[in-house]
């Protein structure tokens, strides 16, 4: 009695011609939306709804975007400062947050004890701490890093804990029936299951880190994108202000994409599960 099966089952989907055509269509829609936005922006000042002194112009912003990349007052030094703050704050904050999440996961008593404190600390608008950090750490990098850490730490603490405490009764049964000890249970079942949640938290944290760096600089700093934005707004250099914002969006997007590139392998199974589910 031979038992034969044919394995003609779904694989990870490769892009079909139809999907490629719809991807092209999506890009056309995106470009059109940006064009529409620029058109409305231009129209608003041409028709006199807004004074271009306050909102700038699309073509002025376009010009300023390229001007800021070179010349005597180029933005790279400020971008560098903000990036360094962002990266240091992100690394320290997320590292500490993940570690704290793991510690709280291991100790139920501690978890219960600090839960209300975490909720309270997390509900505090952290940007309110920025003036205090200026007072403590001065106008340099340290204060911004502290602000970022205060933001990112709690994001990573809560997402790590959430990822580690997802109940799965089937996996629980399986772990016990194959005789996995506590260490193996955590290593083979709980940690891998938590990875997608933690990675999603990291992505959010990266965005928060940029926010913390720029907000910290706006409140008080000697260098950085936030300092430059404040100066440009005060000088009514709206086109240059807008151009810097656009550059910031591009840099933040690239940073998130880089992180996605490196974490994609860790979460591919999760994306596939959801795609099929």
């Amino acid at each position: 009695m031979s038992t034969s099966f044919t394995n003609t089952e779904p694989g990870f989907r490769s892009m079909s011609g139809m999907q490629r055509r719809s991807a092209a269509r999506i890009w056309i829609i995106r470009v059109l939306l940006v064009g529409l936005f620029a058109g409305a922006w231009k129209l608003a000042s041409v028709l006199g709804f807004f004074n271009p002194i306050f909102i700038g112009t699309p073509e002025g912003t376009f010009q300023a975007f390229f001007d800021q990349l070179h010349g005597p007052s180029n933005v790279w030094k400020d971008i560098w400062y903000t990036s360094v703050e962002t990266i240091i704050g992100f690394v320290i904050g997320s590292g500490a947050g993940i570690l704290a999440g793991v510690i709280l996961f291991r100790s139920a008593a501690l978890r219960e004890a600090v839960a209300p404190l975490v909720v309270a600390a997390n509900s505090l608008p952290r940007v309110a701490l920025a003036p205090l950090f200026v007072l403590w750490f001065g106008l340099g990098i340290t204060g911004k890093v502290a602000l970022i850490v205060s933001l990112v730490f709690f994001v990573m603490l809560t997402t790590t804990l959430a990822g580690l405490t997802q109940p799965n009764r089937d996996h629980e049964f399986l772990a016990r029936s194959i005789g996995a000890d506590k260490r193996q249970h955590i290593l083979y079942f709980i940690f891998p299951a938590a990875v997608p949640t933690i990675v999603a938290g990291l992505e959010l944290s990266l965005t928060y880190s940029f926010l913390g760096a720029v907000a910290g600089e706006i409140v008080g700093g000697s260098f950085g994108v936030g300092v430059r934005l404040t100066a440009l707004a005060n000088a009514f250099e709206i086109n240059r202000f807008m151009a810097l914002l656009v550059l910031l969006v591009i840099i933040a997007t690239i940073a998130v994409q880089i992180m996605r590139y490196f974490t994609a392998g860790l979460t591919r199974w999760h994306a596939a599960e959801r795609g099929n589910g």
Partner: protein
Amino acid sequence: MNAMTIPTDFRGNKGTMPPAILAEQVSLRVGGAKDILAGIDLAVRDGEFVAIVGPSGCGKTTFLNMVAGLQPFTSGCLTVAGSSPKAGRRDSAYALARDALLPWRDALGNVELALQVRGVDKDERRRKATEALAKVGLADALHRHPAQLSQGMRQRVALARTLVTEPRFLILDEPFAALDAQTRIRMQELLLSLLKQFSGTMLIVTHDIAEAITLADRVVVFGPRPSRVTAIYEVGLGARERNIGELRADPQFSRLFEAIWNDIEKDFEL
């Protein structure tokens, strides 16, 4: 419930070997609700295949989990190979109704899991897992993740994972319940062929009477909650030497099916 029809001695003392699984008055009482198990008496001989059937909610899976050491009972005596049941015995394997595959591991990684927990070295467990997957017809799907597999394929991976440790006790909880009727029969066929090289003891819970008759030497019928054993049938169709088509065509198969069906049906009317 006073007419207990037990065609054979419940202890099944046929040989000289001590029973592989022995349950005496195993009960599970829960405060504030109807008892779940009212006292299960059952003996499974070493090397015997026993199937438990019964109305849904009768506690058959609960009893199975007790044998697997995954669930405590409140009174009675239960032994597996002479000692009290314990989860994670190295000589037993348990398969759940749902495949419980780890979605972040490919088929090979899932099958390797139990070997990894046992500390088998990498080359050895890779070789064994590959072999086990080949046996269930998945030699070409070693590196696919569960999301890339159909229900039937996932269940075959789960079967390979269950068998890869070469257990002496096979404990299966409705292993094919999630499958469509046709895939289920092919899986039973596959399991039957794999069991031809298996000399251990198998305890399987199912709600599918045909599956019970196909796979087991004896079929044990549980009554409704609070449950006890209401009947035991010797199958005696020689399933281990035959294929499913032949088995199902055997007139004895339909007679057994009808008898068991009536047993369960009778309980529904209570």
